[in-house]
């Protein structure tokens, strides 16, 4: 078992290194000049510009800059922001909590919506409810998340006045962003739950329970769902990485604190170290979640364990 985990974690390392290379090269090839972003329009002599280039290490070769970035990243030193002159890791540390809360809340929304709608449409398979769920899922998945967010603001903030349209911190500001982000992921969960409930409904033990005279509702609630939900848990786990990335848009719509909003602002201000740091953190979360889900499979399903061990 330990071998399986170690193997999977080690396989993640080259991927992560590749990600840092792609990220670093992409950001260094850009035409904009970071020095002008640092100066933000202030007049400067060539000496000052030279001093700034040196201070931020921009005078060195790209491989040298990459090596420094990489070695520093290991010690959680992600450089200094051009605009605030604050350490990037500190800035991310202050904001990442808000984003993770949003992602977890959204995952909950996605799981609950998916399980309820998915099992309802599986039980009434091909009926009116099933059709209704399909149509709403189609509309939902076809709507860009920023548009869903704006709709929720219009309805729940301005018309009904239930939740604030913007802000962060309190629980009430979390509701609308979490729904926006969660709905975007709910379609996949709904479909998955529907399929796995249908599958479990056809198993022999369900027939046995019916024969025993158990009421249908009880069979579904106590026996079918419990078996059908296991694969769902892993998928919701897998979605977490994507949800962290989706926060970029949702946080901007709701002007909510977090690394997503930070990223958009940093891109606008050509603040490379911040862009680099935030994208790296999101990619690391994404990779780590994927590895964790892979490993959790082998706990849930022994067949996967042997396959991975041989693998």
């Amino acid at each position, binding site marked *: 078992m330990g071998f399986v985990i170690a193997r999977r974690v080690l396989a993640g390392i080259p991927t992560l290194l590749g990600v840092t290379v792609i990220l670093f090269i992409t950001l260094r090839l850009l035409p904009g000049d970071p020095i002008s972003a640092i100066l933000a329009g202030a007049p400067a002599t060539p000496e000052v510009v030279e001093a700034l280039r040196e201070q931020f290490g921009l005078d060195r070769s790209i491989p040298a800059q990459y090596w420094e970035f990489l070695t520093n990243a290991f010690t959680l030193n992600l450089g200094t922001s051009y605009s605030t002159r604050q350490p990037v890791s500190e800035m991310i540390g202050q904001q990442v909590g808000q984003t993770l809360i949003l992602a977890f809340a959204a995952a909950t929304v996605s799981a609950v919506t998916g399980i309820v709608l998915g099992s309802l449409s599986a039980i009434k398979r091909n009926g009116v409810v099933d059709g209704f769920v*399909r149509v709403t899922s*189609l509309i939902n998945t076809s709507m860009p998340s*920023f*548009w869903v967010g704006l709709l929720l603001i219009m309805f729940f903030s301005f018309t009904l006045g239930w939740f604030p*349209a913007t802000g962060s911190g309190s629980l009430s500001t979390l509701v609308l962003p979490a729904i926006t982000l969660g709905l975007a992921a709910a*379609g996949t969960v709904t479909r998955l739950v529907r399929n796995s409930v249908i599958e479990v409904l056809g198993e022999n033990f369900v027939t046995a329970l019916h024969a025993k005279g158990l009421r249908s509702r009880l069979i579904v609630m106590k026996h079918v769902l419990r078996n059908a939900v296991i694969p769902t848990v892993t998928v919701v786990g897998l979605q977490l990485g994507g949800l962290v*990335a989706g926060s*970029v848009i949702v946080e901007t719509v709701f002007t909510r604190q977090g690394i997503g909003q930070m990223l958009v602002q940093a891109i606008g201000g050509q603040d490379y170290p911040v862009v680099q740091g935030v994208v790296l953190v999101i*990619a690391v979360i994404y990779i780590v979640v994927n590895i964790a889900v892979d490993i959790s499979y082998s706990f849930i399903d022994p067949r996967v364990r042997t396959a991975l061990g041989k693998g």
Partner: protein
Amino acid sequence: MAAVDAAAFTEVRGLRRQLRRTGVSVNSALLYASLAWMAIVALAALIPGVLATDDPTVLDPARALQPPGAGTLLGTEQYGRSVATLLVHGARSAMVIGLLATTFGMLVGSVLGLIAGYLGGWVDMVIGRFIDMLMCFPGVLLALIIAAALGSTTTNLILAVGIATVPGFARVMRGQVLTVRGHLYVEAARSNGFSPARTVFRHILPNALAPSVVMATVSIGVAIVVAASLSFLGLGPRTEVPDWGQLLSLGQPYLANSWWISTFPGITLTLTVIAVSLLGDWLRDRLDVE
């Protein structure tokens, strides 16, 4: 969001299957509605003057924030321009980015997938690793960094969105080539002494292409949404006439009182994605792809 999400497509698939089973003719009605909608969007993209007679660049503060109905079909935004006119003129940018980004992603992705699947071995491993790495960036994020790095022009936006769709195409093509390569007619072509190029382009590619073509239709819808997202975030090209994403964000400060500015571009985007997904699924049936 594995690289680029195509969830809408899967929803469409199930819906059409169900409609077929229940024997409702809604199925073909939906198809014609989608065709009609895409025809309107295409017309708006090609000759916007036919659908909207007024000039989308003329600002008229006196007509600002008028509700739909009174004089203008869908109301006016804060600078007095008609929302309907802006939507018509925004269609070109959406279609150009959707089509060109998809073409780019399909070409690059398919070539990568074809090479990886046909050659196998270490080439396959290197390409596979590269694709895996691209996939570590969720779709929107990848497009976001590339757009930020290249600067916000239409061409760069096309590249950014296109690159984000590369991994998907590469995977589909690679899988397909692996299946086709094992068939007897490929073996026959090889033992006839045909050159690898002839084997690949005359025998493997035509038989491996269908899933990529279907994926391309879906990818157009996805590309339109990703491009609109970047525009919404302010990373799109700065043009005189706002595209759909920009129009949505123009309306955001006025949501409380002038709902129509954001609502109509939102509906337009959604309808376009649905229409593209329905047409893609129809194509999937015609090409007999599972």
